[in-house]
């Protein structure tokens, strides 16, 4: 495959970036998107140029590090996959591919395509956990959980925190992320003790960090590589209202 890449290049957080065009040839359709970028970077290094910086880690769709806005869609043209699982066969030979970093105020660009997603960690630190005493591991069946809730909690816990929801949302809202993190506990008995505090603190932090507000366009759900459902957002809204009323 022969492709033209237009990639956002930005020296550091402070400089203003620009798009740079790179032609690339001999790309196998079976190559993953990140491998294609690796090949480009090899070329750039051989030419003595600065390689394109992009986030990645596991390359198997489980860590949530890869974060590329490809041709107008977070994680590119395929559905329910991360950019690292995206294959070049999803593109046409000769196509121009425009690659941008996530764009959101709370996700500042560090360099090129890499953004700082510490904002998500800060939200988690506010309450995305349960407090338990350490010690011997408890008997697994001592707290019974109904099947439906345990499934829903697992679905919510599938969120890998990549930030595609924020990147896709026209308001750069983090509601899908926060709702998944609240839901995974709200659905389980272990999460009840700190439930009210958790939802209030996490939502407060989310707003403080400058994420936008949810206007229910559901772009987040459409782009989530883990198919996190918007029903989690409704649950978050319920939890939040209950917490506000109960104080």
């Amino acid at each position, binding site marked *: 495959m022969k492709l033209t890449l237009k990639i956002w290049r930005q020296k550091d957080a402070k400089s203003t970036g620009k798009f740079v065009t790179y032609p690339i040839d001999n790309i196998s359709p079976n190559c993953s998107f990140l491998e294609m970028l690796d090949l480009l970077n090899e070329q750039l290094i051989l030419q003595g140029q600065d390689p394109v910086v992009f986030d990645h880690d596991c390359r198997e769709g489980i860590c949530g590090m890869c974060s590329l*806005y490809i041709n*107008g869609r977070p994680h590119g043209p395929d559905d329910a996959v991360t950019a690292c699982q995206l294959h070049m066969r999803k593109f046409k030979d000769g196509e121009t591919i425009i690659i941008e970093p996530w764009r*959101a105020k709370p996700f500042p660009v560090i360099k090129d395509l890499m953004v700082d997603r510490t904002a998500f960690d800060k939200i988690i630190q506010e309450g995305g956990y349960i407090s338990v005493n350490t010690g011997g591991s408890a008997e697994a069946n001592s707290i019974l959980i109904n099947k439906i809730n345990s499934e829903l909690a697992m679905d919510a816990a599938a969120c890998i925190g990549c930030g595609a929801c924020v990147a896709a949302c026209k308001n750069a809202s983090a509601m899908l992320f926060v709702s998944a993190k609240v839901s995974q506990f709200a659905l389980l008995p272990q999460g009840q003790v700190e439930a009210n505090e958790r939802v209030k603190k996490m939502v407060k932090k989310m707003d403080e960090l400058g994420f936008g507000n949810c206007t*229910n366009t559901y*772009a987040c759900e459409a782009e989530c590589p883990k198919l996190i459902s918007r029903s989690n957002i409704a649950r978050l809204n319920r939890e939040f209202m209950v917490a506000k009323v109960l104080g």
Partner: protein
Amino acid sequence: MAFLGIFLMIFLVVHLGINLCLLRSDGGAWFTAAAHFMGTNYVIKVFEVILMGGFVLHILIGIILQIQNWMARPVRYKVINKTYTPFMSKYMIYTGGIVLVFLIIHFMNFYFIKLGWISTTLISEGEPDFYNIARALFMQPFYSLLYIVLFIALGFHLNHAFQAAWQTLGVNHPQYDNCIHWFGTLYAIIIPLGFIIIPVYFLFIQ
């Protein structure tokens, strides 16, 4: 936003009911009676204040949230987002803006007259003759056309608004989602259509 929206949506049904009285060929007897009731009943007067508050809050909060949302992405994407989203869900502020324009025109033509802030020559039995005011307006093709276009915009606004309001209030269940969705679409078609029938009636049928 959602609470206020639902409140306003209920109000629209009441308003439509009164407007449809215009369609009776009774020289405006029903409509005038309804307008008189709305203008004098004390319960209605209390609701009027709540309603105005509802409008103002809905508009103000909408604008504030929108500004925050714009600020949340200071650097825009080069490629416009291609993610699939429900039709019109992205344009609420614009359809809302169009409805606001209508509201202003509407207030100048009716509500401010009722409050006595604007005077009118069409008076019957000491009260402004809203039947003939409405009739005179709808007889103007330009006004009627504008009215129709603005109500189509309201339809688009409502189409997203209805189901979004329930989502915001946390009402979401796989079993009822479709139901809410269809009811919302139906509401968003029937209500504006009901309003649109009136200028069509005055222009072409009467």
